[in-house]
């Protein structure tokens, strides 16, 4: 069946409000009588809290209250773990240590909140934070992952024997055996450092307790309003129906707004109930660097065993993963890494050992990519090295190792981030790679352009890398669709939205079933009063899990429409069609009824209805996949390095993506462009620099460099569609894909651009400075 709405470049429903300043963000909430919060945060990364004196702060005019851990009494509790603990399989150790609302005994990372001031204005609240006298006894801090595991390291959590937070081994086949048989074994140490999500909107919470109606309303910059509601109700001793959490328009999410509960997220509602006043807290950018979660830091000792014709026999990876001061997000990131280290390749033998480490740094939780960029970096780097050592073309060695199209579903025999079996559902990799090579002009560049430019003294390099992205994990999402009396359609779903265009792409899914204009579909996301079952927007699952729940609801509503229209029009259902907001008999267009009229007839004010019928044209449905759908893609790039400044200029950039059925190519391209831009930051500009005392040295946008329009190139996007067999729409997630392969792509391109140095890049992020240092090292050793 040809589709009318799905797959079309339909313009976004939500844009007019966003473009005119009319869209509601959390900091736009203003309630009469609202007070403002500011936090005292630790300057030290590791310190014992000896005493705290808030009396001067409490006396400052305009200050309403000041709270410390002690003031919270029995309500002081560490946050709940965000994901279930890992299954108790063999060789799994996991120590759950979750973040605390306010420091009680010991500070474990710089920026950890110690006290909160509530005042008439944010200005006064910040003044009063300065009034607080806190006695902190600094302790030696641990920042380095390897040092943290040494026997003489200080302990982040004194009740544990070491800083090992978790240990887990996953095995497939027998790596040791194939290692002995291999023609080539590549063994390297690969280091991946930290970055920030840096959504343009910082976090924020407004909480309002209405004592008379006993209702708590919370506006929260969260990607997961329903779990926040459930958690708040439980912590505050309220029924879930007394708590309404709204995630309005969010100024970007990228993962850290999925972390829950942040200390502030628990405290602000708690204080709102205590004071029976609306309370607002808006994070500032400096706090965002110290109090919002980060990601990516890992150290890998990896091996790849190959035959002389470049076929991978097996891989081994023992790696350290930095969870920071606490580990509320469990093993999600390192499991993702473990799942992606074999990339899109047919690897029969695999040994992977995760060691999660506590340090005195800010907590890590998933950021766009979520452990996947690290795994893909390793797979692609090792293949590049193997290609060089074996004298095989980088494209050819990838083709030789791809999982073949007839091998799907491809079962890896290990578990994924959701503790389900890691199964790659579908794919056809080689045509995607070939399309990317064609679009970038690979052969022509190698044959003609590069030799010509090199002869002219220019340092130009090309690269091409592939990746998979596991997406669309469960458990489930749901949606309720209602045909209104005016013929417009209202849709409610539980996921939050942070700019992905849900108001449009989900409307297309509905329009496809109900034959209405996309602009007549009104979607509500992220308001627990509208829909209160679900989890959230994360793991590239919106279009897959929520999209298919909406599809299922739309199919059910379509069924109700057809049944009623069939009775009224006295025509069999299979002769009816839905078009232009009307139901009509296919061959007799004058025999029709509007959806609005049908909706009114389905909800009569008087008269008898048949027993057992439900009123209205409305349906609620859910979708939960058996396991996640896996997307695939290839990126290719040509860049030029300025040998004086080490700045790079990206000359051409190509993405070919297979994320199954495309709902809206325009929105998909936007997601890819943005992902690539973040990936470029991850690869060459953005790095959070900590010193040996675990102090963050570049906590401002002056010093933490995010790519601007002059660093991000024009990106050419190509699509291939291999629909997922796991869901009716055939969708796979795409939100994180753009980010995943970029560091690997940069490494290959830089090596290719600077052949005279014979560089081997085994770290990310790089920077012009770091590239300069790497080249100097090479010069010295030559």
């Amino acid at each position, binding site marked *: 069946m040809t589709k009318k709405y799905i797959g079309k*470049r339909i*313009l*976004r429903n*939500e844009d*007019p*409000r*966003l*473009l*005119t*300043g*009319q*869209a509601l*963000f959390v*900091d736009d909430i203003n309630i009469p*009588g609202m007070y403002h919060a500011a936090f005292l945060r630790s300057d030290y990364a590791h310190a014992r809290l000896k005493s705290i004196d808030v*009396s001067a702060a*409490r006396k400052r*005019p*305009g*200050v*309403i*209250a000041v*709270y410390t851990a002690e*003031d919270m*009494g029995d309500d002081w509790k560490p946050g709940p773990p965000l994901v279930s603990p890992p299954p108790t399989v063999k060789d799994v150790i996991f120590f759950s240590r979750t973040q605390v609302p306010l420091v009680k005994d010991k500070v474990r990372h710089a920026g950890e909140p110690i006290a909160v001031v509530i*005042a*008439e*204005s944010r200005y006064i609240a910040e003044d009063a934070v300065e009034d607080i006298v806190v006695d902190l006894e600094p302790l030696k801090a641990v920042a380095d992952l390897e040092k943290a595991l040494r026997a003489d390291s200080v302990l982040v959590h004194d009740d544990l024997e070491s800083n090992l937070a978790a240990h887990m081994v996953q095995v497939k086949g027998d790596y040791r055996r194939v290692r002995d048989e291999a023609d080539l074994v590549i063994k390297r140490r690969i280091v991946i450092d930290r970055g920030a999500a840096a*959504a*343009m*909107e*910082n976090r924020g919470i407004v909480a309002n307790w209405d*004592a008379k109606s006993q209702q708590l309303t919370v506006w929260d910059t969260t990607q997961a309003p329903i779990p926040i509601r459930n958690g708040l109700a439980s912590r505050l001793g309220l029924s879930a129906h007394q708590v309404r959490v709204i995630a309005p*328009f969010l*100024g*970007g999410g*990228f993962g850290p707004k999925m972390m829950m509960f942040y200390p502030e997220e628990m405290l602000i509602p708690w204080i709102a109930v*205590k*004071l029976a*006043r609306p309370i607002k807290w808006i994070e500032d*950018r400096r706090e965002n660097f110290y109090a919002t979660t980060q990601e990516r830091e890992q150290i890998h000792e990896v091996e790849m065993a190959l035959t002389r014709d470049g076929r991978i026999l097996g891989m081994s990876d023992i790696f350290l993963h930095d969870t920071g001061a606490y580990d509320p997000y469990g093993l999600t990131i390192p499991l993702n890494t473990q799942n992606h280290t074999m990339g899109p390749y047919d690897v029969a033998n695999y040994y992977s050992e995760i060691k999660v480490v506590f340090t005195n740094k800010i907590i890590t939780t998933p950021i766009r990519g979520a452990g996947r960029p690290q795994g893909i970096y390793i797979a692609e780097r090792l293949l590049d090295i193997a290609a060089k050592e074996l004298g095989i073309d980088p494209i050819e060695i990838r083709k030789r190792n791809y999982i073949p199209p007839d091998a799907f579903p491809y079962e890896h025999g290990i578990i994924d981030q959701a503790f389900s079996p890691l199964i790659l559902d579908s794919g056809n990799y080689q045509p995607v790679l070939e399309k990317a090579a064609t679009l970038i002009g690979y052969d022509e560049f190698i044959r003609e352009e590069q030799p010509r430019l090199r002869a002219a003294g220019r340092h130009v390099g090309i690269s091409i890398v592939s990746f998979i992205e596991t997406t669309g994990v469960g458990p489930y999402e749901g949606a309720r669709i209602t045909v209104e009396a005016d013929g417009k359609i209202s849709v409610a779903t539980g996921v939050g939205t942070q*700019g992905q265009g849900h108001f449009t792409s989900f409307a297309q899914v509905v329009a496809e079933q109900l034959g209405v204009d996309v602009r007549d579909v009104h979607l509500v996301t992220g308001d627990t009063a509208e829909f209160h079952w679900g989890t959230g927007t994360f793991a590239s699952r919106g279009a897959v899990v929520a999209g298919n729940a909406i599809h299922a609801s739309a199919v059910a509503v379509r069924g109700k429409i057809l049944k009623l229209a069939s009775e009224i029009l006295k025509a069999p259902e299979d002769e009816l069609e839905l078009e232009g907001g009307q139901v009509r008999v296919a061959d007799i267009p004058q025999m029709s009824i509007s959806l609005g009229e049908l909706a009114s007839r389905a909800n009569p004010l008087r008269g008898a209805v048949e027993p057992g019928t439900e009123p209205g044209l409305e349906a609620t449905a859910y979708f939960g996949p058996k396991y996640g759908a896996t997307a695939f893609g290839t990126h290719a790039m040509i860049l030029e390095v300025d040998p004086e400044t080490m700045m790079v200029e990206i000359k051409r950039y190509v993405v070919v993506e297979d994320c199954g059925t495309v709902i809206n190519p*325009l929105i998909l*391209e*936007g997601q*890819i*462009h*943005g992902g690539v*831009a*973040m990936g470029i930051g991850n690869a060459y500009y953005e790095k959070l620099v900590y010193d040996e005392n675990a102090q963050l040295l570049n906590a*401002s*946008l*002056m010093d933490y460099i*995010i790519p*601007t*329009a*002059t660093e*991000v190139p*024009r990106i050419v*996007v190509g699509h291939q569609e291999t629909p997922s067999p796991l869901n009716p729409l055939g969708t796979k997630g795409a939100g994180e894909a753009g980010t995943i392969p970029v560091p690997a792509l940069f490494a290959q391109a830089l090596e290719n651009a600077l052949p005279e140095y014979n560089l081997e890049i085994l770290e990310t992020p790089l920077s012009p400075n770091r590239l300069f240092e790497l080249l100097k090292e090479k010069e010295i050793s030559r």
Partner: protein
Amino acid sequence: MPEDLDDWITSNNTPTSIHYPPFNSEMSMSHTIEIALTVNKIHYERRVEPRMLLSDFLRHELGLTGTHVGCEHGVCGACTILFDGQPVRSCLMFAVQADGHEILSIEGLGTPDNLHPLQQSFIEAHGVQCGFCTSGIILTLIPFLEGNPHPDEQEIRHAISGNICRCTGYQHIVDAVMLAAEKISVTQNGRILSEAKDLPPNYGS
């Protein structure tokens, strides 16, 4: 400030027993200065604390929340407004500095039913994702396009290089500006379409 507050915090009395000071009481407004300014063609007279940021004044005193604050240190560009026609970062100015001046914020540019051609182009080229940086980018571009009605791609990229967007990767923003340049010239100068800039190769379907 009620004197019994300390007692209350630890004793957990019901909140209704507390006598709150009136909201924004004079007590906390230690020292204020009278300012008069024009925002979106409306004249305002207000008393403000000298330290109040212009961004906070616009957002919280005038309720013009379309000006977004992303970094409060003048780097991200989200809070850009037009100050006497020039783009400035409202987080780097005090409200008192705007005394006697004229400001345009995003609310003054167009409405959902009557969009400025640049705003319309952002819809058509998908130049918006989360929309947080958008107000600042649009207002940066208004004087830019006035001074350079036919920019090329590099000029556009340079013009918005002081505005960080974390969602779009900038490409669709650049496309939107090129589209707007074409529209504005067509509507204002009666130019014909064939003279307009060529759109980038992969623009549109």
